[in-house]
């Protein structure tokens, strides 16, 4: 990364941005930023994106972004980046232009970048209802193809943001068979009192075999029955499926039968099918039938059971009758609390110290776990043993507990050389120790302690991989406090890469976010180095 060359340009952009008052200046700056070569332009782009913050430049920046959103793939990508980095509710006017780029006629890469931009906005609680038709349309067209997973991410985030999906309920229903997110939305709608229309029945029927949807699907089917649908077509279809020869087909059919009986369909409707399933030649099929039957009869009253048994006997279904005649398993007693809640019991500091100093790994882990509820006075008594535990398998927990002592006012500055050393220690060199180390250093910095000794060794831990969020947190603090170093520069620069919307959506979201964080750190680094 030609950071040195970029230095002056980024600083110039920042200075010009601070002076820019006219919309034309903001647009002019945007053009010069986007014309920069290589992935290094993302740093300048991050600097420019400051004008998206609420303020006098916002309107000009919104106008500029509209033109980006309407532009080519690179322009939509840049828009997705800046919107993710600076998302806030004031950017809602851009939802509709972004939605228009999700249309069928658009290029897939542009659809994807528009999706990432919407995801960035919804993460900042920006309402995305205006884009629902296009999002669901794309979801339906892609039939749950992983390539467009970002669409599900946007809808899922909108659901978590509490947006109403009632106007889009038909879209939701149509995507039920292949989109897990739509199932969650539909469940939430049912919980809110929504009554499914008969037109949703085919999509609901497609979910009959899934255990995960049974709880709310039962509710939806009951609602359909209450409005006059006897579900006879589904019953007949499932009964037919239960006569399947293969164990796989039969397993799904008995699960569907269980759902239908829970939804109020008569048990006797499946009697023939149960009888055949219980006599299936494949053990796995018989076991599946037993499981489904056990779950079905578990919710029946003894009167209902007896009636069904008599009916099965008279119809000559011996296996089913025999099964129904079995004594129901007594309900398992609720597990009694083994002992009083941990919080209520006083901490045995002596026993914990002994276990921390001992050789028994199980006790050591127990002791380290117990320290979680130690008060500040108890923690102080435990300090020497916790320090020694840093050379054991309970290192991460011990470190976390020591980190807990920092905001409680314990004087732990003398431990910093040890913690710095843990960044280089290859015993228990794992991804569990890493967050504990970072949390300790962040807490130490918050307490005003000098973390310079550990600072150079943090990027190299596990080759810079893992826990990027905590590392960035530390980076922001360290750079703000004037700490530098080639290792950190290289680590931050490793995030400044060309972005691609292809591949796993989580990875792209992380790349965009981390690129912004890295750019923010590098800009603050660069600004401090260049005399103003």
């Amino acid at each position, binding site marked *: 990364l030609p950071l040195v060359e970029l230095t002056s340009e980024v600083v110039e952009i920042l200075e010009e941005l601070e002076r820019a008052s006219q919309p034309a200046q903001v647009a002019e700056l945007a053009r010069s930023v986007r014309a920069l070569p290589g992935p290094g332009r993302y740093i300048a782009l991050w600097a420019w994106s400051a004008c998206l913050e609420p303020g006098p430049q916002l309107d000009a920046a919104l106008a500029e972004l509209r033109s980006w959103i309407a532009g080519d793939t690179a322009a939509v990508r840049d828009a997705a980046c800046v919107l993710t980095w600076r998302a806030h509710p004031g950017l809602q006017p851009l939802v509709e232009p972004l939605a228009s780029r999700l249309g069928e006629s658009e290029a897939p890469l542009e659809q994807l970048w528009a999706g990432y931009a919407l995801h960035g906005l919804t993460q900042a609680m920006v309402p995305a209802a205006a884009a629902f038709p296009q999002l669901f349309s794309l979801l339906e067209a892609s039939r749950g193809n992983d390539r467009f997973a970002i669409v599900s991410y946007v809808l899922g985030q909108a659901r978590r943001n509490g947006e109403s999906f009632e106007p889009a309920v038909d879209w939701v229903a149509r995507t039920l068979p292949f989109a897990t997110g739509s199932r969650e939305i539909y469940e939430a709608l049912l919980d809110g009192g929504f009554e499914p229309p008969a037109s949703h029945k085919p999509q609901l029927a497609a979910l009959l075999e899934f255990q995960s949807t049974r709880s709310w699907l039962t509710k939806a089917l009951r609602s359909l029955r209450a409005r006059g649908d006897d579900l006879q077509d589904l019953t007949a279809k499932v009964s037919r499926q239960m006569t399947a020869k293969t164990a796989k087909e039969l397993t799904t059919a008995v699960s569907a039968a269980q759902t239908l009986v829970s939804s109020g369909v008569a048990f006797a409707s499946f009697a023939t099918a149960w009888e055949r399933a219980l006599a299936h030649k494949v053990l796995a099929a018989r076991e599946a039938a037993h499981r489904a039957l056990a779950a079905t009869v578990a919710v029946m009253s003894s009167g209902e059971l007896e009636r069904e048994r008599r009916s099965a006997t008279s119809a000559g279904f011996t296996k089913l009758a025999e099964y129904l005649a079995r004594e129901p398993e007594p309900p398992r007693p609720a597990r009694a609390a083994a002992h009083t809640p941990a919080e209520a019991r006083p901490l045995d500091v002596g026993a914990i110290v002994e276990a921390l100093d001992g*050789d028994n790994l199980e006790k050591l882990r127990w002791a380290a776990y117990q320290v979680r509820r130690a008060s500040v006075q108890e923690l102080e008594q435990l300090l020497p043993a916790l*320090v020694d535990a*840093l050379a054991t398998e309970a290192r991460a927990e011990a470190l976390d507990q020591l980190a807990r002592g920092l905001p409680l006012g314990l004087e732990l500055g*003398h431990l910093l050389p*040890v913690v710095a050393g843990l960044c*280089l*220690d290859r015993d228990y060199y794992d991804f569990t120790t890493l967050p504990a180390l970072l949390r300790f250093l962040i807490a130490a910095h918050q307490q005003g302690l000098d973390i310079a000794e*550990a600072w150079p060794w943090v990027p190299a831990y596990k080759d810079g991989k893992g826990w990027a969020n905590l590392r960035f947190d530390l980076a922001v603090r360290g750079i703000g406090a004037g700490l530098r170093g080639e290792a950190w520069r290289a680590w931050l620069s490793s995030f400044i890469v060309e972005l691609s919307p292809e591949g796993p959506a989580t990875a792209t979201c992380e790349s965009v976010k981390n690129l912004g964080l890295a750019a923010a750190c590098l800009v603050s680094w660069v600004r401090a180095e260049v005399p103003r």
Partner: protein
Amino acid sequence: MKRPVALKHALLALRSPLGATREAALDTILALATVNMVDVRSAQPALVLLLARGSAAEQRKALQIFEYRADMGADVGIAVPVLLRLQRDADARTRSLAQRALKYANKRLEGLLTSELQAPPPSDGQPPSSDRAPSAEEPAPSEAALRTEAQFFDRAVELYYQQREGQKAEALLAEATRRFPDSAALASVRGTNLAWSLGRHRDALPYLERAVELDARNASHACTLAWCLLWLGELEQGREQARRSLKCKKELSNEVRLASQLYLYLCGEPDERPKLLTALAKLIHAGARVSDWTVDGLLEQARRADHPEAPRLAQLAKVTFDQAPAESLEDWPAWQTARRKRR
């Protein structure tokens, strides 16, 4: 993770507010680390605290422990940040110990510290500080004051290895082995001094055998005995000891592996050689080297036995002993084959 009782007591004593108690605990840990080869890893966090904030005496003892552990190939990464500080210390001995520990730690950390390592002090006509006799401010412990096995061991190593005073070391070790007849470490160091410093390989043999007898699971003792036997032309026994050292678990560092495999390559059976050369290539590629050692006698034995690669063996030994770069073997076809196999 079973720790000896002595180590547990020492760890508890390190928490004492009394300096004398802590120093005694450090002596115990040093003795455990150097003599009985106990894994004192669990003491490392407390040792780093002393290294960073302890008294000068505590700091020096903690440094000795880390330097010894680093030399043995143990992980001392936890002490590296403080060692980096101490490599610029005003005291020459502290500097020297820290630099040596860092050198070994750097190997283990695959060169991560290279840019941080302090260059050795410029030569002013005197030997480097680490090889110099203790300065006036820091007098050498008098032989009469030596009490423990560890103290004898340290002093002997200092005499024969750092000061190259083999005769003085032999005198001291004669007394030491008389007082501690069951110490494998002292027996081994006496044998090594007799053979390596004084060239008295035949005289060294009983001590090296005694060390193996006392500590049969120690790879390092078996390796030194193998070296001495092969030097003296006792090829069969020497090979057996070298093979045994590779099977021992105790103190089987990469250095010991490298040395034993080199001895077997020089004086072993012909059908073992390709496999051994591949193993040597792997270790050398991983950065393993044996410092300050010689195999002249073994090279002679190899020549006498018409070793097919005889012209290359001296260069292989130089690379093994860090006197030549590994690239100098690249024009050797057998080495190239071994390197390919390694991959």
